[in-house]
């Protein structure tokens, strides 16, 4: 864990689809080994932001530096290396539907690791066991529930021991027990490998438990409402909308 160094930096980032700007004026920096929660109402652009931060979509404007590499100019080997060192869970899980869960997790390993098939199998079984899918390894994605697909997607995102992991709504569709386990898993991965995590979540208790920082995307102003440690927003004060997000959700 190399504390202090900023692993993810956004400067005046503008994101959207085609010409339509969804969010702009996004500026924040995330130190390595920290956990960032992206929060905000549905449709505000959280998934769009995740894809831009992970280097999957071009931003409309501004600049993102991930692991010291400017995403806008990174090409070829640089880009490969960024993608290889990050993991991504899509909101829709995006499992390979013709492969079993085990094969889904083994696929990136087979492509990128040089270890023998037996060790790959062992790694894949372990990662599936980490997300509680030890008994469903040979099922196809069409044979499992949405919550299980989410967890398999998380296991696939972790397949290559990424330095930065992007999780788009990892706890959506999970039962409270699995969701609690997921928080625990994220914290343990960070403790063991210093993994940096960027996640989208709507669950206030889970955010308070895991996240070091949160960024609130405000659809009314079209930019970020606030950036800071989640605990700061529990007291009424600076950012009323973020405060409302945290406290309202706490009452129900």
């Amino acid at each position, binding site marked *: 864990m190399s504390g202090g160094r900023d692993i993810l930096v956004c400067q005046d980032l503008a994101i959207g689809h085609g010409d339509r700007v969804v969010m702009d004026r996004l500026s924040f920096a995330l130190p390595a080994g920290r956990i960032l929660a992206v929060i905000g109402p549905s449709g505000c652009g959280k998934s769009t932001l995740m894809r831009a931060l992970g280097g999957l979509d071009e931003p409309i404007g501004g600049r993102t530096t991930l692991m010291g590499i400017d995403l806008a100019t990174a090409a070829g080997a640089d880009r490969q290396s960024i993608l290889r060192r990050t993991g991504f869970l899509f909101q829709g899980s995006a499992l390979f539907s013709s492969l079993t869960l085990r094969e889904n997790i083994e696929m990136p390993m087979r492509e990128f690791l040089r270890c023998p098939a037996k*060790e790959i199998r062992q790694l894949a079984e372990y990662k599936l066991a980490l*997300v*509680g899918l030890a008994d469903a390894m040979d099922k196809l994605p069409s044979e499992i529930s949405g919550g299980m697909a989410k967890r398999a997607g998380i296991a696939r995102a972790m397949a290559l021991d990424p330095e930065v992991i992007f999780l788009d709504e990892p706890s959506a569709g999970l039962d409270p027990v699995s969701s609690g386990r997921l928080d625990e898993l994220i914290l343990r991965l960070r403790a063991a490998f210093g993994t940096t995590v960027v996640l989208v979540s709507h669950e206030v208790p889970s955010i308070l438990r895991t996240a070091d920082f949160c960024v609130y995307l405000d659809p009314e102003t079209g930019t970020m409402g606030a950036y800071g440690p989640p605990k700061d927003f529990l007291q009424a004060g600076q950012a009323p909308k973020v405060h409302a997000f945290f406290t309202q959700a706490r009452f129900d």
Partner: protein
Amino acid sequence: MSQAPSGLPFARTEIQADGLAVVTVGGVWSADVALPDLAFKGDRVKVVAEDLGTFDSSLPSWLFARGRHVRQLDLSGLPARLQSLVTMAEKASETAEKPEEFGLLERFGTWGVDSGSSWARAFEHVGQTALGFLRMVTGKAKVNWSDFTLQLQTAGVDALPIVALLGFLTGLIMAYVGLIQLRQVGATVYVANLVSLAMTREMGALMTGVIACGRTSTAFASQLGSMNVSQETDALRALGISPVEYLALPRILAVTLMVPLLAVFATFIGVFGGMVVACAGDLSVEQYLTQAVRAITFKSFLVGFIKSVAFGFIAAWAGCYRGAVAKRSALGVGEAATSAAVLGITFIVVSDALFAVIFNLFNL
């Protein structure tokens, strides 16, 4: 930092007097090096660390794989952060749930964002395919070889019956039409030349190409198009794998390989179909075969072969391209399949005409 251990991962077991197996692990653990091959013995195992350097998840997974069947596993001799990763997985296998509901994930396949049928996009895709091919030759591309073997079967071998049927009927029809004309000039023996030349140079490749468009282009377009819908191609891109290389390349290679073979097969079946008609009244089998063998030259065989390679490529590429640019919806997938067949057949017929001109120039 300075005294951090840097050796290869190692593990050894000592069985103590009371039956407790003590496993010592150490070194630097990484999924990129060979891990120790050691099984845990007995049902009481204690794991301790010695000179343990950095590790990735190969170490917890190694411990998990061996420790999960041990009744009494003591990990207290390991660093806390490692312990927590092993026990996390153990808990998972105990509480793993059974499936409750069935999600409807689309079939394997996805990429391309817009439905752009523009020429620029098409050329870009051809370029990516060519580049992917070069990267494959130099061993840099990630190609799904199991798709390749699967497509050899489904686009190649499985097409044999339909290719045989249509090839046979084509030869039969040509002989029938030819005989009507040739009888008038009393030259029925040339029906063998007519059928075999047409099958070799033209109809064998063309029929097979069109069949490939109907069977294979549409299948590829819907496979890859539906992968767009389920974000599977995004998932590939997120791993730094090019969907063109991973999905399109093996398909295009397989079909470009199989269509020429099918075309040769169709040619022979067609010649046979012509024989059935010709020998029903006008010619003897011997006459027909002598004429046919005389008519099929190496040149005309080569012409047919070159064409069939091109047609195979076109059919496969059209499917992969339309799949890649399919709209992200069920409707978009259907459109992709239709337009793949149309695009493939059009390109095949147009290129057939171009080939006619080119071969004429080179006097082939």
